[in-house]
């Protein structure tokens, strides 16, 4: 038995950004173990900007090497780092004026203790063993704790900056969704009947969006296994990373009898494509209880996961379109 308590999911976007004529050389410099500033009038900006922050005029890519030393202007001590921070033990975020630069850089300082942190602290740029041409290639240490490094020069420029955004989420199943899942596990379709309109929603989101009425467990109803195909599409697979399909297949919407919202995205494999049609009568055959897979059903997405083995044609006469035209999606 699966206990439907909480659901977790990960959201990832692998960003690739072009670096351009100013950020590119700066990131290339970091990979090669040096800090570059850009000339802006009689000042030097590090990290370099593509524009004069006062006038917004575009800057020529006229670089000057700065650092590796610097002076702390301001700091805060991060006692509980997040997984996205550059250091995984307590550290300082600080604004650091790198020697030869006129603008402060915000970065991390790896220090033995918060006690060494103060305005005016002398720090030194340090480089990671593995450098990819990113701001995270560098960090700082107090000069008194820093040590010499030999940084080999990398190959070519850094034209692209890669940044994988990866976020984790966890929440409890909403009560309505939990009861829907418990129903599927027990081999039942559990929907909710709106006390305002009498419409039956499956899976319900816990409310009737048309009448704006919240629903409770008292509104739960069990729905039968027979229904009508209201619409479908035939998907011809194209090859892409992760694609496992090779042959055309059907995705259909099935409106269960005595319900008002079709179950979408139903996977049809057992009925020949040429025989499949809207209006066709079908019946859900559940997988054996120990083979039901609830993956993909959470508060965000409904569906039936891997719970239904197949939709079996019942052989009943087709239902005319007019009967289900309000429920096609």
């Amino acid at each position, binding site marked *: 038995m699966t206990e439907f308590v909480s659901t977790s*999911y990960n*959201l990832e976007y692998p*960003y690739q*950004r072009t*670096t351009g004529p100013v*950020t590119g050389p700066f*990131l290339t410099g970091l990979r090669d173990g040096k800090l570059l500033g850009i000339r802006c009038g009689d000042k030097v900006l590090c*990290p370099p*900007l593509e524009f004069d*922050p006062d006038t917004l005029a575009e800057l020529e890519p006229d670089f000057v090497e700065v650092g590796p030393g610097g002076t702390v202007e*301001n*700091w*805060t*001590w*991060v*006692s*509980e780092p*997040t*997984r*996205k*921070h*550059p250091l995984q033990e307590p550290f300082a*975020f*600080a*604004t650091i004026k790198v020697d030869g630069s006129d*603008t*402060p*850089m*915000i*970065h*991390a300082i790896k220090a033995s203790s*918060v006690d060494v942190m103060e*305005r005016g602290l002398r720090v030194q740029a340090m480089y990671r063993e593995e450098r990819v041409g*990113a*701001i*995270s290639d560098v960090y700082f240490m107090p000069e008194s704790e820093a040590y010499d490094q030999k940084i080999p020069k990398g190959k070519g420029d850094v034209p692209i*900056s890669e*940044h994988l*955004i990866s*976020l*984790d*989420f*966890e*929440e*409890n199943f*909403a*009560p*309505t969704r939990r009861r829907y899942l418990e129903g599927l596990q027990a081999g039942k379709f559990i929907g909710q009947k709106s006390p305002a309109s009498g419409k039956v929603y499956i899976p319900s*989101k*816990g*409310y009737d*969006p*048309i009448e*704006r009425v*919240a629903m409770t467990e008292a509104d739960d109803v069990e729905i039968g296994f027979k229904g009508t195909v209201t619409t479908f599409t035939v998907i011809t697979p194209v090859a892409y990373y992760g694609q496992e399909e090779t042959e055309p297949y059907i995705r259909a919407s099935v409106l269960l009898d005595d319900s008002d919202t079709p179950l979408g995205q139903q996977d049809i494999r057992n009925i020949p494509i040429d025989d499949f049609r809207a209006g066709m009568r079908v019946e859900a055959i559940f997988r054996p209880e120990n083979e039901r897979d609830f993956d993909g059903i959470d*508060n*965000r997405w409904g569906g039936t996961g891997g719970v239904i083995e197949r939709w079996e044609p019942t052989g009943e006469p087709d239902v005319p379109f007019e009967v289900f035209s309000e429920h096609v999606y």
Partner: protein
Amino acid sequence: MANRQGTEDIAIVAVAQTPSYRAYQETEPLLLMSLTNEILTETGLERNDIDFTIAGSCDYLSGLPFAFVSNVDGFGAWPPVYESHLEMDGAWALFEAIVRLQMGDIDTALVAGSGKSSPGRPREIFALQTNPYYHAPIGLDPISMAGLQANAMLDAGKATEADFAEVVSRSRRDGLKNPFAQVAKDVSVDDLLAEPYHTQPLRKHDLPPISDGASMLLLARGDRARELTDKPVWITGIDHRMESSHPGLRDLTVSASTKIAADNLGIDGGAFDVAELCVRYSPEELLLKEALALTDSVRINPSGGPLCGHPVMATGLTRVCEAARLIRKGEAGTALAHAASGAALQQNLICTMKGDA
């Protein structure tokens, strides 16, 4: 086009908000639906009597692409309604609604803000708002930025840690009287200062809680406003300004953009009975009070403010709701509401309002 005055024929005619929840168990549309129904009941309007609907929310918060589309369920959007959305706090939706109403062809606008921060890790999510080359890859988060801002103020001699604690002590005590507050407590400055640091010089109580929640208000123009309520709250000015996305280039010891917005509106910091400020981190109250030139006669955050409940994307609009509610209850005649976005008060919005004299 700096001056946003001359909007005095637009009024808030109803406000509603949910409590701040540490983790709301139902979905975000339900948060909004309860508020829509509350406002319709109060004003006697049918859903389709409202001309325009606009909401602020953030899909990243609960990690659901197009969550803002699901939220439309909460507004009662069938038959279809005229609506829009911002990936910003609802206070900026208010700004857009006011601009839209000034076109003169519609009379009412429903404005909402909502968010569920509980499923995600806000510190990791909001680091993604920062510069994608220089700051996001090192996870520069709002709490750390608030820590830098606080330390800059201490170094400049503009505040002490006891000043921060004073803000917390008063806010959390005021929160005891706010039925929507999530965190409220009667706690002394000395007890607060005895707590360990979280992000030095900030202690955990200098930070807002992680919250789920929503707020909503209905705007109406001129005669329509008077038809809908006998207690209209007239918008007397609204403006918002933003500072550099490179915090290293900002002076963190002042809120420059708040001051520009205040100057644009020509506000007199002594002219308000109450100010609801988006104080997410206690030092921000001191910066805002200075930038707005608020005198000691102005009561700040009687609701307890965001330190008692921080439903991201609704927090700013909630300030407007709280201020308007005090005017409607007759406890204030004039009020200022403030909303903030970005790290260390990067972007600031001011909305001023008054009741019928």
